[in-house]
C-alpha cells in the first residue's frame, strides 16, 4: 500500500491558493471562503499550518464580513451561512475568534431561524438541514447556542428523517450522506442523538461501502473520497464505525492521490482538487492514519482546536 504524500499535498495546497490565471480557478472565487477552510484545515491536520501568514488570512476573512454580521464567500460577495461557518472555522484554526464581535455574528445566524425551527441560508429564504447544522455548529463554537430555539431546531431536523434511517434536505427529501452528516452533527452537538435509530442509520451508512473499499453518498453511485468524511464521521458519532472495513477504505483514499504533484481526487486517476484533498486527509484522520492530527467528527475541526475553544487550552 502507498503512503500519504504529506509534503506534496502541502505544496499542492499552497500552489492552488495562488492560481488566478485560468477560468476553472477564477470561476470558483465566489466560494473562496470554503476553499480557505478546506485548504487550511488540511494544512493543520498535516501539521503545517505555520507555513501560512496568519495576519494575511485573518484580515482577508474580516474583509468578507457584512454589516449584518454574516460573511460572504469573498470580498464584495453577499453573506450566507455557508461562508459564515467557514469564516468562523478558519479563525478558530488560528485561535483568532477573539477578533470577532461574536454577538453580531450570532445575531445574524439566530435571525435566520424560522418558526418551524428550520434555518434559511440567507435572507432569501432557502431552507435546508445543512443550514441547521451550520447554525448550530457555528453558534456552539461562539458559545451562543442560547440565542436560538434549540428544541425547535432539533424537532425540524428529526422531521427530515426518512424510513431508511437517513436524512434529507427538507421533510421528505431523499437520504444523502452529506445531509446525514449535517443532521447527525447537529443532533450530536445539541446532545440529541437519542432521536436517531442508530442500528437503522448505521446499516444505511455502511451499505455505502462498495467493493473497492470506497464509500458512496447514495445507493447506486460510484465511490467518492469526499464521502469518506460524510459517512465516516456520521458512523463515528453514532458509534457504528466498526461496521465498515477501515483498511480497505484507507487504501481507497491513498489510491486517489496524485503522487507526482500532490492533491487527492474523488476517484483513482481523476483530476485532484482542494475539496477532495481536504476530505481525503480528514477521512484518513478519522481512520487514525499515523502522523495526522485527530479531527473532531461533529465540528470538522482538529480536536486540539475544539478543545481550545471549549476547555481553554
Amino acid at each position, binding site marked *: 500500500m502507498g503512503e500519504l504524500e504529506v509534503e506534496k499535498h502541502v505544496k499542492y495546497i499552497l500552489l492552488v491558493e495562488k492560481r488566478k490565471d485560468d477560468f476553472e480557478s477564477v470561476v470558483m472565487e*465566489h466560494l473562496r471562503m470554503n476553499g480557505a477552510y478546506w485548504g487550511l484545515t488540511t494544512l493543520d491536520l498535516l501539521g503545517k499550518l505555520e507555513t501560512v501568514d496568519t495576519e494575511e488570512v485573518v484580515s482577508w476573512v474580516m474583509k468578507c464580513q457584512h454589516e449584518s454580521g454574516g460573511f460572504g464567500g469573498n470580498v464584495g460577495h453577499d453573506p450566507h451561512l455557508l461562508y459564515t461557518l467557514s469564516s468562523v472555522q478558519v479563525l478558530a484554526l488560528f485561535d483568532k475568534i477573539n477578533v470577532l464581535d461574536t454577538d453580531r455574528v450570532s445575531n445574524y445566524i439566530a435571525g435566520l431561524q424560522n418558526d418551524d425551527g428550520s434555518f434559511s441560508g440567507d435572507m432569501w429564504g432557502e431552507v435546508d438541514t445543512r443550514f441547521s447544522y451550520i447554525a448550530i455548529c457555528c453558534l456552539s463554537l461562539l458559545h451562543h447556542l442560547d440565542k436560538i430555539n434549540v428544541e425547535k431546531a432539533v424537532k425540524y431536523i428529526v422531521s427530515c428523517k426518512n424510513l*431508511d434511517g437517513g436524512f434529507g434536505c427538507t421533510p421528505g427529501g*431523499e437520504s444523502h450522506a452529506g445531509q446525514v452528516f449535517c443532521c447527525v452533527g447537529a443532533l450530536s452537538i445539541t446532545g440529541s442523538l437519542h432521536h436517531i435509530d442508530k442500528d437503522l442509520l448505521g446499516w444505511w451508512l455502511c451499505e455505502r461501502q462498495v467493493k473497492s473499499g470506497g464509500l458512496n453518498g447514495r445507493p447506486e453511485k460510484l465511490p467518492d473520497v469526499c464521502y469518506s468524511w460524510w459517512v465516516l464521521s456520521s458512523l463515528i458519532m453514532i458509534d457504528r464505525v466498526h461496521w465498515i472495513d477501515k483498511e480497505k477504505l484507507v487504501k481507497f483514499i491513498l489510491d486517489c492521490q496524485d503522487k507526482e504533484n500532490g492533491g487527492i481526487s474523488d476517484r483513482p486517476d481523476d483530476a485532484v482538487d482542494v475539496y477532495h484533498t481536504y476530505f481525503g486527509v480528514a477521512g484518513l484522520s478519522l481512520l487514525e492514519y499515523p502522523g495526522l492530527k485527530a479531527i473532531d467528527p461533529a465540528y470538522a475541526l482538529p480536536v486540539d482546536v475544539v478543545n481550545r475553544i471549549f476547555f481553554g487550552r
Partner: protein
Amino acid sequence: MSEEGLYCEGDPLDLLNQLEYILESDPLIDEVGFIHPSQFVALNEEAGGPPPSSVGTVLQSADESVKSKISNTNVLNTVFWNRDHKLGISTKVLLPLYNAAKHAFMAANEQYKMHKNLSVERDGSGNGSVLSCYSTSLNILETQVMKHSRALLLLSCDFGTAWNSRKLVLSKKQHFPIFMDELLLSALVLSYSPKSESAWSHRRWVIKMIAGKCSNLQEIVEKESELVKKIAEKSKMNYRAWNHRCWLVSYMSGGQVLHELSKYRDWAGLHIADNSCFHYRTRLMLRMLEDSWQKQNVNGCSGCNFEIHQVWKEELDWNEMLIKRYIGREALWLHRRFLSLCWIKHFATDIHDASCHSDHKTSTSHDMVIFMDNELGLFRSCSAILDNDFEDFQSHAIFSATYILWLTKQVSECLGIELREKLLAGEPKTLLNKVCLEKAFLWDSLGGLCGCI
C-alpha cells in the same frame, strides 16, 4: 490578421456587449454550452452555407453601429455561435468574458444598492420632481443589474450574489411575466450546469413569490416536474434536480400526486438504477398516505383507504416484476424495503393490530402470512446462485439477503420472530458470509441484533 489575434487583443467589454446583445435579441435561447474553438468549424460546416438564422435575423434588425461591431468581433462566428435558439460560447474567451461580466455586474450592483438605500432614506421628503428623476435613474440601474447578472450567470452558475441581485430587483415587482422570465433564465443555466444549486434554489424562490398570487399554479408545478424529468434524462442521478421535484409535491393537489405516480411509472421502469426517481415515488406515496389519514380523521371512513391500498399493491407487484427482470439493482431492492415496511405497518396489520401485543402470537392476519411467504419466496428465488460467478448475480443474492434481514429487523417484534422461524437456520447470513465477506463486520453484529439468525 489571424482570427485568434482578433479576440485575444479585442476589448473584453466588446465581448460582453456582444453576448448581452445576443441574449436580448434572442430571448428564446434555451440551451447554452461552452465550445472548443475547433468545434466552431464543424458547427459552421454542419450548418452549411448561409449564416446561422438567428444571428442573421439579429444582424438585419440591428442598427448599423452595433451590427458592424458584432460582425467585427465575431469574425466567422468564432466566439459566439447562435442558431435555433442555441448559444455556444468559445472556451477561448471564457476568462476575459467572465472578468468583464463580473466587473460590470459588481459595479452596477453596488451603485444600485447605494441608490436604493438613498431612495429609502428620502422616502417622504416630498420633492416630486427630484423623486421622479430619482426613480428614472433607479430604473436604469435596475436594467443594468439584470443585464449584467444574466450574462455573468451564464458563465458562473453559482455566483450567488448575482442571483440575489435579481431577487432584490424583482421582489418589489408585481408584474407576473417577469417572474416567468426568471424560470426561463434558470432553465437556461441548468442547460449547461444541471446540478447548479443556486439555479434550482432560484426557481423555488420564484414559485414561493407567485404561489399565492397566480391562478395557474397547478400548471406551473406540472411544468416544473416535466423540466426535472427532461434534465434527469441527461444528468443521471442528479440529487438537486430530484430534490426540487420532491419539494414540488407539497404544492400538488391530491389528484396531481396520483397522476404523477402513474404518469412517470414507465419512465422509472426505464431508469431502474436511478435511486432518486424511486425516492420521488416514495415521496408521492407517503403524501397519499398522509392525505388519507387526514380524510379518515375528518370523515371517519375507512373506505378512503381502498384506493391507496390498491396503489400500494400495484407498486409492490410492479417492483417485483422489475427485480426479476433486472438482476442486481440496488435501487429496486431499496424501494421494496420501503414498500414492504409500509405495507406491513399500514395495510396487512390493519385488523389484527392489537394481536401482536396479546398472548395469541399465532394470530397474525391472513394477509400478513401470505405477504411474508411471498417475500421469503422472492428471497429464495433470488439468492439461488447457480454456481454463477457473474457479479450481477452475486449482487442480486446479496441484495435479496440484506432485504430479508432488514425486514426482519424492522417489523414489529412478534412478526419478526415468526419470520425468523421460517428463515431456516440463518440462511441469509450464511449466504452473506459466503458472497459478501467484506461486510462481515456488519453481518456479525446483525447476528446479535436479530436474535436467532
